[in-house]
């Protein structure tokens, strides 16, 4: 237990402090201008003075990420079910699905902007477009990997399609669904930030762009710090949900 704390908390903290210290020394020794690389302390000051804006813009970004993520779940999972359970649908649309993934995501952002305007809709569309793919693929993999003995057991007990789905296939797909969700939430954040870069008027992404154009490097870096925390926060939420909903799964993860 003690060794665990040292490994998981002390070591990373020390590593972090060393990195910050070296960063600071580097800027001072090579006399870099603030625009190129601000000192960590200055970024911290910027966070302290600008935190109301950072928080409110951060909240906009957070909302968009969550909505985009939810969108990819509520659309991705049923699509995965249709694709795994209907051979014709699979044959018709799976190639198309793969093709959508070869489109460079950033390149589609301006088009989505034209369709959905500069509000939250276009951010959601980009977040969804980027994050639904792992959701579909992992859910489909999960639904296809039900142990065949369990399906046989169900058949011998004359379970209906619905019973088999709800009581066997879906729960046994949950670990896969969650591994898809962990990728999806990360991608949703990326998607939202792309949306905010390209056309957004709010959110941390656009704050970062504005700060950049005003050559306010400390604020840009402060936005970056907030974005990283936001990403970690959302990821941890998904992991917590996973531990809460599928506690039986710790055989696989540990």
């Amino acid at each position, binding site marked *: 237990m003690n060794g665990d704390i040292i490994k998981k908390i002390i070591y990373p903290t020390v590593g972090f402090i060393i990195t910050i210290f070296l960063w600071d020394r580097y800027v001072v020794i090579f006399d870099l201008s603030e625009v190129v690389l601000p000192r960590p302390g200055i970024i911290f000051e910027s966070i302290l003075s600008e935190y109301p804006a950072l928080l409110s813009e951060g909240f906009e970004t957070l909302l968009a990420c969550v909505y985009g993520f939810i969108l990819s779940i509520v659309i991705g999972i049923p699509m995965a079910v249709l694709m795994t359970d209907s051979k014709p649908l699979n044959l018709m649309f799976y190639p198309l699905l793969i093709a959508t993934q070869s489109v460079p995501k950033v390149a589609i952002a301006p088009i989505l902007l034209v369709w959905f305007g500069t509000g939250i809709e276009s951010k959601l569309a980009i977040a969804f477009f980027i994050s639904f793919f792992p959701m579909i693929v992992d859910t489909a993999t999960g639904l296809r990997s039900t*142990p065949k*003995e*369990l399906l*046989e*057991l*169900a*058949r*011998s*007990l*004359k*379970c209906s399609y619905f*019973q088999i789905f709800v*009581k*066997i296939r879906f*729960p*046994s797909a*949950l670990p896969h669904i969650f591994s898809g969700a962990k990728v999806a939430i990360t991608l949703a954040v990326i998607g939202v930030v792309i949306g905010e870069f390209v056309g957004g008027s709010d959110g941390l992404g656009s704050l970062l762009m504005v700060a950049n154009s005003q050559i306010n490097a400390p604020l840009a870096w402060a936005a970056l710090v907030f974005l990283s925390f936001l990403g970690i926060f959302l990821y941890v939420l998904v992991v917590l949900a996973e531990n809460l909903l*599928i*506690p*039986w*799964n*710790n*055989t696989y993860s540990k």
Partner: protein
Amino acid sequence: MSAASSHTGPEDPGLGSGTLQNVKKVFGMEGASDLVAVKDISFSFSSGEVISLLGPSGCGKTTVLKMIGGLIEATSGEITVSNSLVRGPYENVGMVFQTPTLMPWRSVISNIKFPLEVLGKQLTDIDDKAISLLKLTNLTEFKNAWPHELSGGMQQRAALCRALIHSPEILLMDEPFGALDELTRMEMNDLLLKVNYQEKNTVIFVTHSISEAIYLSDKVHVFSKRPAEIRKTININLPHPRNPTDRYTDYFKQLELDAGEALGVIR
């Protein structure tokens, strides 16, 4: 039959009995010639008997077992269980597979009750039944554990409880102890006999192990290589209840020799 007659089956002597009449199974293969898995199998079993199907790998034992359970349709021939023709799955079957295949998201007790849940049986004595099965299989203190917290042998015992919870007349077991170590396997053999004695159901047991087949069964059907035919039927006249020392008697060794010869492993 003297050994089998020491069993007392359920009230109706027809329940749990069955016959296979010239059963054949051909699998249609895409883009290849058809595969004859089972050529011509006929045998019958009566209520409460333990019957083993012994044969080389890939000879069609699982296929025969699934046909008895109504999970695979026979290409020709007739299968009757409990006086009615098998035309698909029927609920009076319990199944145990080589791997326990418990649902990892359900506790042990909830896994065991699964068949009742989907069969919609509103038995008032569900809990009594579950508790007596847990006791029989020494799992009482693990009833609320997750499956992954159990050893392989314990998981297989839970799977056995699940197969028995709805009091099926016939228990189909496909190499259920094949993945266990020798010691656990012998324990499970005795447990199965105890269960069979208490529950009085018919057991059809698929195995690769000659000694396991002889120790458990009233009758052993030795299958040929694919396509399966019955090479030899060996009646086992060991007294019930079995005693582990039975394995070391001359009679037992003679039966092993007979089975080995029928399998072609001893020439």
